[in-house]
């Protein structure tokens, strides 16, 4: 469960002065739900997910992740969080198994539990055939599977995906989408941020459209269609952020 209340972040930029990257965002996301954050580049999606992941300090507002406050208990939040971004990379000089083991250890898994979890995750994601190959010898699709394994090895109840399919081919992207759906079916809370309409349409139970740091609309795909009177989701989106068609 993720609950966000008036979360805001502003930066001081030398050229632009005070920049409000996220400006008073509130929503709730329940277990067994995929919640989509849809917005163009620079809308504030990454800043928002980074605040939830406790690597950026909010300037105002609060949020709870899996029942822990992101300001007061950041380490507990991180313990219950799986985090995957499209720009994430792996340690090139370590093998897939070493990378995932490292993160299992960072999450405090006992050696026995880590071994069991790694075996299970590697089987689900079909990593076993290349598990002991160094990461710099893996293909992009294989790397993305290892990244997923790294993000979920500790069985987090909450998952944050920030544009996880960027740079992937159709097949690999479909694998990621299938995996996100599986996380929801296991009862996890999933927040999925993207700028790709089709992914949102196919995957998300509810959607928040973000534009210029603010939430422009929240609802299911059908609700948003009704609200705008548009059929094609691209048009729905453009209407919601106030663009002329």
């Amino acid at each position, binding site marked *: 469960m993720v609950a966000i209340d008036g979360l805001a972040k502003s930066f001081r930029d030398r050229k632009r002065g005070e920049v409000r990257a996220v400006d008073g965002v509130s929503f709730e996301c329940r277990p067994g739900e995929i919640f989509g954050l849809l917005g163009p580049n620079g809308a504030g999606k990454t800043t928002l997910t980074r605040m939830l992941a*406790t690597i950026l300090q909010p300037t105002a507002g609060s949020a709870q992740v899996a029942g822990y406050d992101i300001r007061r208990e950041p380490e507990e939040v991180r*313990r219950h969080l799986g*985090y995957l971004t499209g720009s994430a990379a792996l340690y090139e000089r370590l093998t897939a198994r070493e990378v995932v083991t490292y*993160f299992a250890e*960072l999450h*405090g898994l006992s050696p026995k539990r880590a071994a069991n979890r790694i075996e299970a995750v590697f089987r689900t994601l079909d990593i076993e055939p290349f598990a002991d190959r160094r990461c710099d010898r893996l293909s992009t699709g294989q790397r993305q599977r290892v990244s997923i394994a790294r993000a979920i090895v500790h069985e987090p109840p909450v998952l944050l995906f920030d544009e996880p399919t960027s740079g992937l081919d159709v097949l690999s992207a479909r694998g990621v989408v299938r995996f996100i759906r599986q996380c929801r079916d296991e009862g996890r809370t999933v927040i999925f941020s993207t700028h790709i309409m089709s992914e949102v349409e196919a995957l998300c139970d509810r959607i928040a459209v973000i534009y210029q740091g603010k939430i422009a609309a929240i609802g299911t795909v059908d609700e948003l269609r009704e609200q705008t009177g548009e059929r094609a989701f691209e048009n729905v989106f453009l209407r919601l952020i106030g663009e002329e068609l």
Partner: protein
Amino acid sequence: MGKSLVRVVLRKELRETFRDRRTVFSVIISPLLFTPLLLSMIGMLVTRQARAEQHEVLSVGLVGGEQAPSLQRILSNSRGLRFEAVSAADAQTRVRTHDLRAALQVPRNADALLADHRRVPLKVLVDPGNEASQRTAQRIHAFFEERSKRLVAQRLSKKGLSPELVRPFDVRDTRISGGGSVAGLMLAMFLPYVLVLSSILGGVYAANDLVAGEKERGTLEALLVSPASRRDLVMGKFLTVAIVSLVSSLLSVVGLVLPFWLQPPGMSWLARTELTLTPLALAAMLLVQFPIAILGAGLLLSVSTYARNQKEAQSYLSPVMLIVTVVAMLSLILKAEAPWPLALAPILNAALALKQALNGSLDPTFALLAVAASAAYASLAMAFATRLFQQESVLLKA
């Protein structure tokens, strides 16, 4: 709160670092292979040159020798000098054009002076800007020095007097047993330099890789989202750099000392006398290395944390490296017995304390002050790196 994850981070970083070919090369292969090789090559060149010089026959111009056949007879006995009659005007130009190494100018009445037992004024034309000319002049001096002694002895014995009459003292050096050696002296000079340089520069690749490299490759974000605290992460990385620096400086010392013991070809010039490192010198070496390695690790990690990528880290590092190199070079010039304020000079203090220990002239006050000051600087550098690592604006700078 979970237990400290420093060990987990350290283990992974060490494993990854020692799989980096750049680190392995600069920390292990280069000091163990290239330092001895380089020393060996220098040694061979120096030995060969010295031998060649010994057998070399130097051509010297002789001005005004025609009128002094007795003096010429004396000159014809000289070894390694070949005299060639030239005019006074030619002598100048031919020495200047390196055609002749030097020239000897003999007075017209040289033979008469000799016969009268009076002093013969001899002029050596030498080019001070030409090393070979200088060397030739020295050889001429030595030749006449030796001839003078012989002539004096002959003249004295003709009059029934002992040569000891004009040489009342006979001074000779005798080496004490168990003392230092030339090799030891060389080591005392170079070791501090090599040690200081390698313990700071050895960790460069590792440090740049550990934070700037993680930012550049996009692995840092996932690490920051793990439950490990920033403190655990920075400590793990910091210890990794410090360990790499220590290994680097230790192996540099081994690489520098090893040739003295193994005595490969070309090293005989240095290793003619036995080299012994006293336990005190060894202890001082270790004591000095730790704070420098830690100071270096803090410095390098701060730069690496502040930089956006490895390239940027490299350019921030170039002034740092320049300063470190200059300071290390100062240790070559400065005397070991330094005034105490120098014990507060970072890096230089360690090099000087080490120099003292190797010389056998360790000043305990200086050494303690140096270690304390270094430890203080090291903890400052460490605290700075940790502070920097806590700042989101620095870590997520893109």
